[in-house]
C-alpha cells in the first residue's frame, strides 16, 4: 500500500519542516517527503536536499490524497486519556475511545491506569495492548500505576510494567500522598528512564471540594478546591524530581502558582514538563454557574487569572504539551446533584478544533507551535520511537488538518460512548479531515 499526500503544507517541527510538500508513505512508514515538480520528486529533509530523479510517484501509488490548502502534520499524540476499559465499558471502550481519537486527529493516545482493575501489573498492560491491537483505531500506550492498586502504599513492579509496554507512571485520580513513596518511585523509575506523570493534588487541602475556590464557589456555596492544593504538590514533586533526577511531567496544570514553580524549576534545569488541557485553557469557573455538571472536573476550572497565566505558559513554552484528560462518564452519573457528579469531561474530539479556534485563529499560537505541543513534545517526553515526526523512516502516523473548516460540535456525531462535554453546540473553526495510522486511513471527514 503506497499513499501519496500531495500539495499540503507539511509542518514537522521535529525535522524543521514547514513547506508545501508531498509525503509518500509505504509499508506503514514515511518513505519520502519532497516536492513534485513536473516528473521529478524533490526529496526534502535536513540531510538530503539533493533533487533525485525518481519516477513520478503518482503512477505507482494506491491512493493520492490531495491536501492542497490543508496542513499535513505528524499524527497528534494525546498523553492523557481515560479509556475505561477494562471495567467501565458502558462509558468507553478501547474501540470507542480510539475511534474518538481518530476523529479528533490523534494517532496515538496514552491511557491512564485508573481502570477496574487498575493497570498495576503487566497482565493488565498486556490486556490493554492486545485489545488495542485487535479493535483500536489508533496506537494505545498504557500508563502504569505508581503504587499497587493505586493505594499509595507500595510500589508496582515498574520493571514489569515497562517491559509490558507502559510508557509512563501515574496514579492519576488518586494522587500519591506519601512523599517517601513518591521519592522511591522516582528513584526506581530512573532505572528505566520512564517519566512520572503525577496528578498533583494535596488531598487534605482539596477534601470535599467540587469547584475552584474562588468567587463563583463563594457565591454558589460550593466547597472549594484552592489553587494551592495543586501547587503544593507540584512543589513537592519538583523538589523530589530534582533530588532524584527522575523525569517529571505534571498532568493538567491549572494554576498560576504551579506554573511559577514549573517555570522556575525548568530555568534551574530540572527535568520537568507540564501539560494543559483545552478546557483549562478556554473555560473558567464561570462555566460552573447554573451547577452545570459538565463543567465539573479535577483539577477544577479555575478563575480567569489562572486561565490567563496558563495561556501565557502554553505560549512561552513553559507548558510544553496540550493533552485532553478525556474522561468519559455515563449520562446518568452526570445528570445529578453537582456534589455527586463525577469529575471530568471528554475531550478527544474537540481538542484540536478548540485549540485552532481559540489559539490559531486568535493568533496566539502558530500552526508549528500547535503541532509541537500536540505531537512533537509528547513523543519526546514519552520517548515514543518514530512518532511525532514526519522524518523519512518514521511511522506513517499522519494527521491532515483543514484549519479553516467550520463545524459544530454535535452530540450525535461524537464517537465516544459518553457525551459529557461542555462544548456541545460550540461552533469551531479547524478540524482533522484525515487521520492516518501506520499508513492506513482510520478517519476521513464524510
Amino acid at each position: 500500500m503506497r499513499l501519496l499526500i500531495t500539495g499540503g503544507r507539511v509542518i514537522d517541527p521535529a525535522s524543521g519542516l514547514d513547506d508545501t510538500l508531498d509525503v509518500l508513505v509505504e509499508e506503514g512508514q514515511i518513505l519520502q517527503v519532497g516536492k513534485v515538480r513536473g516528473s521529478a520528486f524533490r526529496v526534502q529533509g535536513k540531510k538530503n536536499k539533493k533533487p533525485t530523479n525518481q519516477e513520478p510517484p503518482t503512477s505507482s501509488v494506491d491512493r493520492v490524497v490531495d491536501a492542497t490548502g490543508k496542513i499535513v502534520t505528524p499524527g497528534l499524540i494525546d498523553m492523557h486519556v481515560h479509556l475505561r476499559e477494562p471495567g467501565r465499558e458502558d462509558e468507553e471502550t478501547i474501540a470507542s475511545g480510539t475511534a474518538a481519537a481518530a476523529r479528533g486527529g490523534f494517532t496515538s493516545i496514552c491511557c491512564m491506569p485508573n481502570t477496574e482493575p487498575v493497570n498495576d501489573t503487566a497482565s493488565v498492560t498486556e490486556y490493554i495492548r492486545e485489545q488495542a491491537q485487535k479493535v483500536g483505531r489508533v496506537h494505545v500506550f498504557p500508563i502504569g500505576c505508581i503504587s499497587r492498586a493505586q493505594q499509595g502504599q507500595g510500589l508496582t513492579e515498574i520493571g514489569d510494567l515497562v517491559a509490558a509496554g507502559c510508557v509512563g507512571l501515574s496514579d492519576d485520580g488518586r494522587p500519591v500522598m506519601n512523599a517517601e513513596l513518591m521519592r522511591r518511585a522516582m528513584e526506581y523509575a530512573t532505572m528505566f528512564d520512564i517519566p512520572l506523570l503525577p496528578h498533583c493534588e494535596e488531598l487534605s487541602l482539596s477534601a470535599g471540594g467540587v469547584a475552584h475556590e474562588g468567587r463563583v464557589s463563594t457565591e454558589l456555596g460550593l466547597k472549594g478546591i484552592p489553587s494551592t492544593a495543586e501547587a503544593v504538590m507540584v512543589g513537592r514533586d519538583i523538589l523530589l524530581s530534582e533530588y532524584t533526577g527522575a523525569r517529571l511531567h505534571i498532568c493538567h496544570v491549572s494554576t498560576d502558582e504551579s506554573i511559577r514553580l514549573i517555570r522556575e524549576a525548568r530555568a534551574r534545569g530540572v527535568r520537568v514538563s507540564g501539560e494543559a488541557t483545552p478546557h483549562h485553557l478556554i473555560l473558567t469557573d464561570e462555566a460552573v454557574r447554573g451547577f452545570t455538571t459538565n463543567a465539573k472536573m479535577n483539577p477544577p476550572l479555575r478563575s480567569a487569572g489562572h486561565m490567563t497565566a496558563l495561556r501565557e505558559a502554553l505560549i512561552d513554552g513553559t507548558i510544553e504539551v496540550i493533552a485532553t484528560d478525556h474522561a468519559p462518564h455515563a449520562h446518568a452519573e452526570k445528570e445529578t446533584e453537582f456534589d455527586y457528579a463525577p469529575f471530568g469531561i471528554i475531550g478527544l474530539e474537540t481538542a484540536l478544533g478548540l485549540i485552532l479556534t481559540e489559539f490559531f485563529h486568535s493568533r496566539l499560537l502558530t500552526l508549528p507551535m500547535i503541532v509541537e505541543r500536540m505531537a512533537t513534545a509528547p513523543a519526546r517526553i514519552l520517548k515514543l520511537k518514530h512518532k511525532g515526526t514526519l522524518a523519512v523512516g518514521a511511522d506513517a502516523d499522519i494527521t491532515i488538518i483543514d484549519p479553516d473548516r467550520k463545524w459544530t460540535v454535535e452530540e450525535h456525531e461524537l464517537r465516544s460512548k459518553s457525551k459529557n462535554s461542555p462544548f456541545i453546540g460550540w461552533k469551531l473553526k479547524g478540524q482533522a479531515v484525515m487521520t492516518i495510522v501506520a499508513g492506513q486511513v482510520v478517519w476521513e471527514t464524510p
Partner: protein
Amino acid sequence: MTLKRKDLLTIRELEPEEIHQILDTADSMKEIGTREIKKVPALRGKTVINLFYEASTRTRTSFEIAGKWLSADVINIASTVSSMTKGESLLDTGKTLQAMRPDVVIIRHPVPGAPKLLADRLQAAIINAGDGAHEHPTQALLDLFTIRERLGRLEGLRVAIVGDISHSRVARSNIQAMRKTGIEVRVAGPATLLPRYPEQLGVQVTTDLEAAIADADVIMMLRIQRERQGPTLLPSLREYSRLFGLNVERLKKAKEGVLIMHPGPLNRGVEISPEVADGPYSLILDQVTNGLAIRMALLYLLTGGHPAER
C-alpha cells in the same frame, strides 16, 4: 403583577421589585394568622409537597402550616441523603412526584443547586427551602419582612451578620436580599469562617465583632453548626463564644435598642446568651411568625397561571 418566574431558587435572581412584591403580599397574608379560623380557600385543590433531604422542624412546619392555611393539600416527604443514595436519585424522585401532578415542590437538600436540578426538569413550581451552603431564600425574605415591620423601612439601615458566613446559606441569601433593598451589610466572624472572596458577595468583612455591631440597627447572629465545623476550623465552642458570642456586656457596645435576630435553632450560651435571645429587642419569635406570612405569600404567588411562560 406576578413573580417573573416559575420557581423561587435564589434571592440572587430576584429583582428588587419582586422582593417588595413578596413582602407586600406577606403583609396582607399575615392577618390570616390572627383569625380564629385560620383558613382561606385560595389554594383549594392545589398540592404542595415538602421534600426534605435534611432534618428540619421549623422550616418544614412553617411551609406545611402556610400551605394548609391557604387550603392546599400538603404532603411531607422526609428523606435522608444516605438512604437516598442507596436508592432512587433526586431526579427520579422528582419525576415520580411530577407524575402525581403537584403544583409546588418545596425542597431542602444538602447539595447546592439541587433545587435547580428539579426546577429545570419539573413543571411544578420549585421553592428552595435551603440547598447546602448556597441559599435559603425564604429565610432571607422573612428576615427582611421582620425588619421592615419593626423599623418601617429597609433602605439605609445597617445590619451586622455574625458567625459562620462561609458555610451559611442564611448569610448568603440575606446578604443578597439586603443589598437589593438598600441595606448596608457587614459580616463578622472568625477568619476561618469568613468567605475568601467577600467582595463577590458584596459585603465588608471583619474579624472584629465590636466594630461590626457598633452602629448596626440590627444584629443577626448565625447558628454555629457543631456538626459542620471540624476541628480545623474552630479550636473550641468556648473560645468561639468568648470571641464572637453576643451577650449583654457586648451589646453595650452597640446602639441603644439595636434589634437582635437569629434564624434558629439557637445554641444558647454559644453564639447568643439567653438574656439577649429573650431580651426586649429580640425579634427571634417574630421571625418565626413572619415565616408563615412569607411562605403563604410565595405559595400564593407561585401558583398563578402563567399562560405566557408555561
